[in-house]
């Protein structure tokens, strides 16, 4: 058939292209929005759950699992208790333990947390998709008064290599007493990771010991020991805050966790970071639901927008429908015309929506990677999203029955002659 229903629907749509292009663009926009919200939601969740990766256990003084996770990984809040350095040494020597990185927290620099640790920190810690920490400039700390700063610290404070910095006692930004007599020098700047490490300063465990050597009970004692004098003292850490542990085989995880939780010499808590992160995500997933709800509402309003577009063309199409009825087109075919038009709109809208999603992401991803260290990947639509698009298509077709039916009803009332 040369001019079948499809051709008629297509040419008729072309004849009203301004309206329809607007409808297509508005639906495409909302499809882009819902897909990008969904993508960001999923990737954020994945990123969050991978804030720590390749670490099998986190150990600290006994408190709650989420509490331990919050202060050791996210640097939120403070440890209620520290653990002994000797415990760290003992754990390090377990045959199941591949590596163990100590963390000593409690000091800060201009609001950024200071982590006292070992240089193995840079070797073993992983984030995201098992990515290791990389240096933008410089190298790990070596000297007693060397400091490595996270990408965000460097950016916010505009620090370069060689910058002198003074650490503060405690973690509050204002009014903390300063370790003024022992300034540090920035020797390394980390590349962005998108994790709390970006907002941290790392120094050696000995450095943490050194700045507190003449401190007693949270204040500096009148008996000051200078930076140079400190160098001569053997600095032996007595306490640390937490340990990140990598095991030789994953199968040891639960056995080690049990061993550590039943540690004889002091009460310890060992957590599985992945499981605890998931638990934490559960408690903050309201954000996720809100995002999803907003996207859903945008989507529904776009579908209504399409329905309104179709309804608004009804009057315009009265003559067309009258002509088609006069030459004997069946009412069902008239309804089909509206469905075909809707299918056309939705096909173009979904195509355009997905295209602009990729365009948007392609534009945003390098920016995210550079500024936030968020190395998100260009996503392939997952089955859930494809299902969503299919549902959108189906709902739109269903909605189009309404204007189709109204057009048919109108044609009955109009008869063959439309008086407009």
């Amino acid at each position: 058939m040369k001019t079948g229903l499809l051709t008629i629907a297509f040419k008729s749509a072309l004849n009203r292209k301004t309206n329809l292009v607007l409808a297509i663009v508005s639906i495409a926009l909302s499809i882009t929005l819902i897909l990008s919200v969904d993508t960001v939601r999923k990737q954020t969740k994945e990123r969050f759950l991978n804030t720590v990766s390749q670490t099998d256990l986190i150990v600290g003084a006994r408190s709650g699992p989420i509490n331990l996770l919050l202060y050791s990984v996210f640097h939120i809040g403070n440890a209620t208790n520290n653990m002994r350095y000797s415990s760290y040494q003992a754990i390090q020597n377990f045959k199941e333990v591949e590596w163990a990185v100590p963390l000593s927290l409690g000091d800060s620099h201009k609001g950024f947390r200071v982590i006292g640790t070992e240089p193995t920190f840079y070797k073993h810690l992983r984030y995201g998709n098992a990515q290791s920490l990389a240096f933008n400039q410089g190298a790990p700390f070596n000297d007693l008064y060397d400091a490595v700063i996270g990408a965000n610290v460097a950016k916010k404070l505009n620090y370069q290599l060689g910058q002198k910095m003074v650490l503060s006692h405690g973690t509050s930004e204002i009014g903390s007493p300063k370790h003024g007599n022992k300034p540090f020098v920035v020797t390394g700047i980390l590349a962005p990771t998108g994790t709390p490490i970006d907002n941290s300063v790392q120094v050696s465990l000995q450095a943490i010991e050194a700045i507190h050597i003449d401190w007693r009970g949270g204040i500096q004692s009148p008996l000051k020991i200078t930076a140079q004098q400190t160098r001569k003292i053997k600095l032996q850490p007595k306490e640390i805050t937490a340990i990140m542990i990598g095991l030789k085989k994953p199968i040891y995880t639960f056995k080690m966790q049990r061993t550590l939780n039943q540690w004889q010499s002091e009460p310890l808590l060992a957590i599985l970071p992945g499981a605890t992160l998931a638990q934490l995500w559960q408690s903050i997933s309201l954000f996720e639901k809100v995002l999803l709800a907003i996207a859903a509402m945008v989507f529904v309003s776009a579908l209504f927008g399409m329905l309104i577009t179709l309804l608004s063309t009804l009057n315009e199409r009265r003559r067309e429908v009258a002509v088609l009825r006069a030459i004997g087109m069946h009412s069902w075919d008239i309804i089909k015309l509206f469905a075909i038009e809707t299918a056309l709109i939705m096909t173009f809208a979904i195509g355009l929506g997905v295209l602009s999603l990729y365009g948007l992401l392609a534009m945003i991803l390098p920016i995210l990677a550079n500024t936030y260290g968020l190395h998100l990947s260009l996503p392939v639509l997952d089955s859930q999203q494809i299902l969503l698009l299919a549902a959108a298509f189906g709902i739109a077709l269903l909605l189009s029955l309404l204007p189709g039916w109204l057009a048919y009803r109108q044609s009955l009332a109009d008869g063959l002659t439309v008086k407009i």
Partner: protein
Amino acid sequence: MKHNDVAINIENLRFGWPAQNHELLNIPSLQVAYGEHLFIQGASGSGKSTLLNLMAGVLTPYDGQIKVLGQDLKSLSSGQKDRFRADHIGIVFQQFNLLPYLNGLQNIELALNISKKRRQHVQSATPNKQCVEARIFALLDSLGLNAKTALQAASQLSIGQQQRIAVARALIGSPELLIADEPTSALDSDSRDRFMTQLFNAAEQSKTTIVFVSHDQGLKHHFHRQINLAEINQACSNTDEERQR
């Protein structure tokens, strides 16, 4: 008039719009013979168009009988009525007959796409069965239109050209009945007479029965028979309300 010769047979036909209480049409009897050219004259709002809608099976009377080509329209489902209309009846309106986004030829072909019967009729009438278009162009030629005009978008055509395309669409495939609702009212009097002559020429070839309504008495003389709707319609009142319908 023998029963077999009757193309349209109306008995005790009664119709009123559902939203209004008044009866618009009450026609005790009206017969149109096969091949007859009937002119129905009436003032605007007198129910002429409604009568045509009833004949075309678009509207359903609430009482009485209307048989078209021997077929009682009441016994057909709405789908069957659509099919019946596509196969047997050509319709020309006052204006806006064409889909503006198709060209003249495509507008005419629409009728053949919807009715297989009429397409077959065209194919059997041409020596070369493939050449439906040639048949359409021949019909257009008798209506005074050339092929070039027919290939222009309908929205580009003058009203006279549009009305001729509409007549061609109504007559292609030789349907038994042509219903025309004031097709000349948008034409000036010169082209109106030419249009009428061409219409009859084209219809003559297939012996089509024509029912033509108009308020314009000047067209009367083209027809075999003329009736005034007011004379056959016994519906008591024609209020202003109804006139606006």
